[in-house]
Structure formats: C-alpha cells, structure tokens
C-alpha cells in the first residue's frame, strides 16, 4: 500500500518538464503466485504491488535475484496473468488485450534465444512490424522505412545487411532494441539489457534509451542489477526483495545506506552527487 502512495504523491523530479502529467501505466495491487503443480504450495509469490508511470519516464526495478523483478515485468508485458489486481495501459486492462494489440503497445527487450536459422539484421528488426500487419503479407515500404529508422535511432544503421550471428554482443543488444522500437510501442520493457555488455556498450545503450525516451515519449520499465546505472538514468526506482515491493520513489529517496544494505546484503556507502543523483560504492568485508 505505502509504495503506491509514495509514488503518487507529488514530487519534483529533476526532469519535471520532460515528463507528461497523465498516467500512462498504472499497476494496481498486482499479485502473482507460481507453483510447478496446482496442488502444491506456490514456489514463489509476488505480493500486491502498485506503482504508476508517465510518458517519457524511466522506471528501474531493482532487487537481488529471486526478488520478483522479472515476474513483475512479465506481468506488465501481459504474458503472465496476475492472481489479483490489474494493470492499466492508457486505461485499458493489459490482460484483456489480444496478443496483436498488446504487441502494438508494449515492446520487450530481453535475452534472446539462439536463432535457429541465420537471419539478416534488417529481417530481424522487421519482426517488430509483425503486430502491425496481417499474418500472411509482404512488408510495405512503410515497414521498411520504420525498420530502417529504428536502426538509425539506436545508431546501428550500418549493420542492416549483416548476419545476426556475426555482430558483437553490444551491437546485438542495440538491434534487439531497434526491433522493439519498430513496434512503435507506448511502453518499452527491458529485462537486464546491459547484461554481458562492456562498460562503453552499457553507457551507449542507456544514453540511446534516455534520448529515445525523451523524444518518443516512451514509458520505460527496466529490470537491472546495476545500482549505479539505475541511479544515473532512472526517474523512479522500484526496490524489491523476496517477492515484495519495498519502496517506490526517485533515486535520491530510495538510495539510503541501511535500506540498500538490508536488501542486497553487502556493506556499502551512498554518496549524493551534485545533480541530485546518488552513487553507491560497494565495500568489501576485508
């Protein structure tokens, strides 16, 4: 309950002019339980979670492994059905949308399965146009234009004719982001997008994300382990621990030493930097 109120309470984020005033995404008291077998006790539960996000806003979901971050993201994506509560995107309930309509409004960037047969980068990005056309049809000029634009926006236009299995991890992650942009979504979900990327690629990806978010007014929800990148790029932080949402708020309010130490179980130090964004330094035990 309290996290929802804290996020709904008026606050002045650093980029208050950038954010819209209307609520785009509303997660209302959403819970979930997972069990391997219906007769058994659930192996994992997500307790009622609420928060809201506006157009142009970046929300980071933080927490240790098995805290329910990815489950919450899958619920928002509409591929899992909540046990209770509901999720509204522009006032329509996500779970009542058809898969096609959902994919026109919500795009997901996640660790990809291995491709079975080789595909070119542009073919891969065109998959993002699937939800906007019939199942049996040929790509229109518009689709090609949108795919090309998407690649340009993530700075990967020159990769278009390369094979997917011949580009680097950082390039691949940007191409996956381009496919999500080609869906022209309202809501962009990212599940650990910076995993396995080197530092330059991480910063490059997140800079591109922030730029796009400001320009195209996406609402972005990102699940990550990177405390400092989240503090640097997110407008709102959702802190989770073992299936519970502990706090929702701007980074400066969430990044408190005791709270983070208790959640992540490591001694650490929090520094507040000039532009109101905190930085975490992990202290080793020795």
């Amino acid at each position, binding site marked *: 309950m309290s996290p929802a109120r804290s996020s709904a309470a008026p606050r002045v984020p650093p980029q208050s002019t950038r954010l819209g005033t209307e609520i785009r995404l509303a997660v209302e008291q959403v819970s979930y339980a997972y069990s391997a077998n219906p007769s058994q006790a659930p192996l994992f539960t997500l307790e009622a979670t609420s928060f809201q996000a506006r157009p142009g806003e970046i929300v980071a979901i933080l927490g240790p492994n098995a805290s329910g971050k990815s489950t919450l993201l899958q619920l928002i*994506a509409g*591929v899992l059905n909540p046990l209770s509560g509901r999720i509204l995107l522009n006032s329509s309930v996500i779970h009542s949308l*058809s*898969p*096609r309509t*959902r*994919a*026109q409004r*919500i*795009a*997901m960037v*996640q660790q*990809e*399965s291995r*491709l*079975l*047969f*080789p*595909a*070119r980068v*542009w*073919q*891969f990005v*065109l*998959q*993002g146009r*699937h*939800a906007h*056309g*019939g*199942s*049996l*049809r*040929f*790509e229109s000029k518009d*689709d*090609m234009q949108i*795919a*090309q634009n998407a690649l340009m926006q993530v700075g990967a236009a020159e990769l*278009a*004719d390369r094979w997917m299995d011949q580009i680097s991890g950082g390039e691949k992650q940007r191409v996956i982001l381009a496919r999500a942009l080609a*869906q022209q979504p309202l809501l962009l979900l990212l599940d650990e997008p910076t995993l396995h990327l080197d530092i330059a690629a991480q910063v490059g990806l997140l800079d591109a994300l922030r730029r796009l978010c400001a320009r195209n007014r996406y609402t972005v929800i990102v699940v990550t382990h990177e405390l400092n990148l989240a503090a640097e790029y997110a407008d709102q932080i959702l802190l989770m621990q073992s299936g519970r949402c502990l706090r929702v708020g701007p980074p400066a309010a969430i990044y408190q030493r005791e709270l983070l130490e208790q959640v992540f179980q490591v001694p650490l130090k929090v520094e507040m930097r000039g532009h109101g964004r905190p930085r975490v330094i992990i202290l080793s035990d020795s």
Partner: protein
Amino acid sequence: MRPLTFRKLFFQCLFLLIILFFVVVVALKFGAVPVSLYALGRDLLRVLLGQSSQISSDYGLIIQNIRLPRIILGIIVGASLSVAGTSFQALLRNPLADPYVLGVSSGAALGAILSLIAEPHLALPPAFGALLTPLCAFVGAAITITAVYFLGRRQGQIDSNTLLLGGVITASFLSAVIVFLMSTVNSSNTRGMVFWLMGNLSTSFQKSIYWFLAAGFFIAAAVIYATANDLNILLSGEKEAMHLGVDVRRVRFVVYIAASLLTGLAVSVSGAVGYVGLIVPHVMRLIFGSDHRTLLPTAALGGAIAVVIADTLARIVVAPNELPVGAVTAVIGAPLFIYLLRRRLA
C-alpha cells in the same frame, strides 16, 4: 535490405513447377511399354489443359490409367510430407524434425491399419468407408505428435535431443505394434507389412480418392500458409513470439492439427515414407532462405519433385522388380540426418 515480394515468390514457384513438369515427363517414360519423351510431354500438356480426349495413341490408356495416377499420388504424398516436416521443424524449433523420425508417420500407419481391420465389421456406407482410413490415420498422427511433444519436454521447455530420442523410440514401438497386428490379424485388405513400414506408391485407388487427397492437401497447406509470418517469428523463440504479437497457443494448435492431417493423408495412401520432410525443407532453405512465406510453397513443390524422382528410381533400379519408395528416401535421408545431427552438435 530487399524484402520478399509477391513477384519474387511467383518466379520461384514457377521455376519449381517447370522442373516438376519435366520430372513428370521423364518419370512417365519408364515402364514396360516404350514411349518417346516428346510424345509424353505433348500428351501431358494436353491432360493439363483438359484436352485428354485428343490423346489418340495406343499407349494413352497406359499413361492415363497406370503411370500418371501413381505419379499424381507421389506428388501429393511428397508435397504433404514436406509441408508437414517444415511445420514440425518450426513448431518444435528443431531442424531435424520430420514426420517419420518423430514417429508421427508410424502413428498414422497404425491408425490406418486399425481402421482397415475394423471396417468390415462396421457395415459403413461405402462413401464413408473410404474416408475412414485417412481419418483414422490423421487421429493416429495427432495422438503421436502430442505424445512425442510431451516426451520431449523437460522443465516446461522442449529439449531437442530428448524430443528426437522420444520420437525415434515411439516410432520403433509403433512399428513393433504394426508388425504384431499384421502377423496376427488375418485380413485381406490391410495391404502388406512392408507397405506400412517402408512406404510404397504402387497401390491404385478410385479417382475420387485422388480428388479427396488433393482437396485435403490444399486446405491443410493453406491453413499452415496463413500462419507463415507467425512461424517465422516462432523460430526466434516462443517467449519472443508472445511479445511480438503472435498468438502462440492458437498458432501451435492449428499448425499441429493441419500438419497431422497432412501426415495422415499421405500415410493412409502410401505408408510411412521417411525423411522427405527432412531433406526437402533443408535443400529449399539453402536455395531460397528460411522465410516460411517462400519455404512452405517451395518445400511443397520440392517434396513433389523429390518423391516422383525417388519413386521412379524405386521402379527402375532393380527392374523388373520394384523397391518400396521409402527404401530409396531412407537410403538418401538417413545419412543426411546423421550429417545434420553431427554438424549441429559440433
């Protein structure tokens, strides 16, 4: 960045249709009565244009009533098995999936045999009696693919090696049941053991059966083709497909049913011809790429070409005796399967 266009697809299919025409002409030539290739080509064109009454020569009857029906059967069986194989490969995300390797053909054969054993006792009207065999073959195929699908799942995910092993073992088990049934049941109309286990195109049917097979093929293939773009996206993974707007459950259900129907139809008239659904889609992918909007129609035509060639070889290699067509496809297909398996594991 050059997307697929209808024009490109049309010319690819036209190219394969022309090859199919010449393959059929050559296939028509082999037989006890010698006929010139030119006359065959001319007469085949006449048949295609609906002017078969103009075929006056003395060999016309042999061509129309003996050799051509067998070739048409080969075309339908080849196209069906090839499209079924392509569909199973996409749904199971396994390039080695094939109706025969997965045991689906054996399941269909068992269904067909059971219907042939039961039919004399059921006193059905003859029109329905003829449809009972393909129907039971379809049910046998659908049950087998469901069973193999669940055998291949580990922790909620398809494990491709477990799936293949499960399929091969299922095929072996079902073959044993078929042998058992054929040895114990004394029925005149169940055809031979070799027919069901190896596949054979030598049976001739009433004309209506050919129309029924062709209609069944076109309906099932059209249903699968309507999901061509969905299948393309399913290839990148089921969870990705859900986020990209594919109704994964619906597509999976519809395509499994249609592919089982294709397998059932083919097996009910030709037995378990193996590896067509494995070899042909692979060759077509190498030539035309892995986009299902191209792959499905080219695999259908390629399957037709492959089976007509294989059956012609089966007729002439040990002439005047005949091999079952499945022996020819297996001799080519099994080593290819091993090669692809080794390459994938490497």
